[in-house]
C-alpha cells in the first residue's frame, strides 16, 4: 500500500475545494459511512490505543499501570534494543541505496533498444509478486554452508572466500540485506521505467547532436526529468526497509545472538511471544515515529517537485 503514499501526501498539500458549475444527485452521503467507520476504528482508534499502551506495563490480560517513559528508557538503555534499532537503520538505508542503483541500471538498460527488453522486464519483476517468506527460504539454501554460493566460489577457485554466511553476525545482516534487495530490484526498475518513458527522445537526440556524451545526457537530462520517480522509489524503499520482518524471521530468526534483530522482529517477540504488550507497543511507537519522520523529511525534501 506504500505505492500511493507519495501521491496521498502530495494531494494532502494541494487539494482545493472543487468548483463545479452544476451537479445532479450523485450518490448518497451515507454510502461512505461504513468505509469511514471501519477506517476510523481499524486505523485511528487502534493506532491511538497502541500509542497509549506504550506508556503502560500492560501484559494483555488484567490490570495495568502507567509507567511514564519507563518503556522508552528500557529501550534506549538496552544494548540489544539499540542494536536492533541500528540494524533497522542500516538495513533500511542499504536497501534504499542498492535497490535504487540496480533498479535504475536495469531500467536504463531495458528502456528501449534491446530486443529482449519485454521478456527481461517480465522476468525481473517476477520476484516482486512472490511471498517474501518463500523467497527467504530459497536464499537460506543459497547461503547454507554447502550451498550454491560457497560451491560457486569453490568452482571459481575462491575457496578462501567461503564463509558460513548465516552464522557470522556481520555476514548474516548482509544476507538479509541481499535478499531484500534482490526481491525489490524489479519493483524499483518498474518505477524508473515509468519515469524514463516520460523523457522525450527528441531531447536526448538534440543533446547528442550538440555533442553531449552518454554520461552528460544522463546527468543533465535523464536525472532531472525522472526526479519524481527518484523521490517515489527512495521513499517507498526506505519505508519498506524500516519495516523489515519476514526475511529476518525466515533467514536467521534474529540470530546469531541477536545480530540480525530489527525493530519489527522485537515488536513481534516482545508483544506476541513474551506477551509484554506495553513494552511491545513502545517499540512499535518508536518504529512508527521513525517511519513517520522519514516520510515527512522525504516529503519536505521533494515538495517543490511533486
Amino acid at each position: 500500500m506504500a505505492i500511493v503514499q507519495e501521491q496521498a501526501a502530495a494531494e494532502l498539500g494541494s487539494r482545493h475545494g472543487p468548483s463545479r458549475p452544476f451537479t445532479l444527485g450523485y450518490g448518497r452521503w451515507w454510502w461512505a459511512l461504513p468505509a469511514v467507520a471501519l477506517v476510523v476504528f481499524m486505523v485511528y482508534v487502534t493506532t491511538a490505543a497502541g500509542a497509549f499502551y506504550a506508556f503502560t506495563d500492560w501484559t494483555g490480560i488484567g490490570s495495568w499501570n502507567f509507567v511514564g517513559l519507563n518503556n522508552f528508557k528500557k529501550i534506549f538503555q538496552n544494548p540489544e534494543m539499540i542494536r536492533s534499532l541500528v540494524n533497522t537503520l542500516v538495513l533500511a538505508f542499504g536497501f534504499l541505496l542498492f535497490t535504487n542503483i540496480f533498479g535504475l541500471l536495469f531500467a536504463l538498460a531495458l528502456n528501449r533498444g534491446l530486443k529482449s527488453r519485454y521478456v527481461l522486464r517480465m522476468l525481473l519483476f517476477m520476484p516482486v509478486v512472490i511471498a517474501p517468506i518463500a523467497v527467504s527460504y530459497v536464499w537460506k539454501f543459497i547461503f547454507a554452508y554447502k550451498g550454491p554460493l560457497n560451491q560457486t566460489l569453490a568452482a571459481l577457485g575462491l575457496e578462501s572466500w567461503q564463509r558460513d554466511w548465516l552464522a557470522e553476525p556481520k555476514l548474516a545482516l548482509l544476507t538479509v540485506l541481499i535478499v531484500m534487495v534482490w526481491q525489490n530490484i524489479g519493483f524499483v526498475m518498474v518505477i524508473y521505467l515509468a519515469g524514463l518513458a516520460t523523457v522525450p527522445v527528441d531531447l536526448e537526440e538534440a543533446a547528442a547532436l550538440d555533442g553531449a556524451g552518454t554520461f552528460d545526457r544522463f546527468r543533465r537530462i535523464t536525472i532531472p526529468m525522472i526526479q519524481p520517480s527518484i523521490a517515489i522509489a527512495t521513499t517507498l524503499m526506505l519505508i519498506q526497509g524500516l519495516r523489515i520482518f519476514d526475511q529476518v524471521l525466515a533467514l536467521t530468526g534474529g540470530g546469531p545472538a541477536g545480530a540480525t534483530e530489527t525493530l519489527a522482529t522485537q515488536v513481534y517477540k516482545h508483544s506476541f511471544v513474551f506477551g509484554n504488550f506495553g513494552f511491545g507497543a513502545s517499540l512499535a511507537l518508536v518504529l512508527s515515529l521513525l517511519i513517520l519522520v522519514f516520510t515527512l523529511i522525504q516529503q519536505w525534501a521533494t515538495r517543490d517537485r511533486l
Partner: protein
Amino acid sequence: MFRYSKKTLVLEIFTIIGALIMLAPFYFLISTSLKTSDQVLTTSSLSFPTSPTFDNFVTLLSPSSGASSSIFTGLASSIAITVGTIVGLVVLGAPAAYVFARSTSRWSNKVFYIFLIAILLPTQLGIVPLYAGARTLGLTGSPWGLIVIYTGTLLPLSVFLYSGFLRRLPRDYEEAATVDGAGRGAVFVRIVFPLMGPATGTVAILAGLIVWNDFFTALVFLNGSDYQTLPVVMYNYVGSLVSQWNLIFAVVIISMIPILAFYFFAQKRFIQGYAGGLKG
C-alpha cells in the same frame, strides 16, 4: 542514434547476463525440488539432477502424508481471506470513493482526508491493540477477523485508487441516465460501477498481492489455528524439516504456483498496477 549497433549488442549481452544472475535463485529452487533426499546430500547444490523426480511433490500432496492436509487448508484459507478482503474493499470502497469524487460539499473533502492520512500512518502500532481486542472478542484464529482487519487497513488504498480513477471519468453517462429517470442507486450499480472496472482490477491486484503474501499479520492472528494461510503453513512446516531442502523447496514451489500463474496471465496489469501509483 538508437539504431541497433554493436554497442547495443554488447549492452544486450551484459544485461542478459545480469538478468540470469538475478534469476539464478529460481534455478536452484527448481533443481533442488526435483532431487531425492539422498541426492541433496550427495550431489553438488549447483548441479541439476540427472534423473529429475516429482516424488517430493507427490509425497507432499498425496492424501496419506501429514503435510497435504495443512497445505490444502492453507491454500483454502489464503484464497478465502484474499477473496473476502477484495470483496470488502470493493463493496465498501467503491461507493465511498464515488461519494467523495462526486460530492461538492465541503465536509466530503474533509472526510476524504481521513483516508489520505491513513495511507501515511504506519500500521505497526495498531497491531498490538488489535490483537488484544480480537482476542477479547474471540476473533483471533478466525478468518473473519483477519478479513475485517485487512479490509480496514487496506480501505484507504482502495478509496484512494477508486477516487483517482473516478475524477478522470466523464459524468456524461451518469447525467444521461439520471435524465432518463434512473435513481441514484441504479446509476451507481448499473452505470458507474461497471465503468470502474479497471480501477477494481488495480485494487484487486495490489490488495490481493499484499494479503496473499502477508506473513506478519497472518502469523500473529492465525498461528496455531485451523485457518493458517499459506505463508504461515510454510513457516511452520519448514521449521519442522531440518535442512530437507528438496521437500522445503517443493512446498515453496507449491505456494508460488498460484500467484505466478496469475502473474503470467496478467503481467501487464500487475506491472501497471505497481507503476500506476505514479500517474495521478
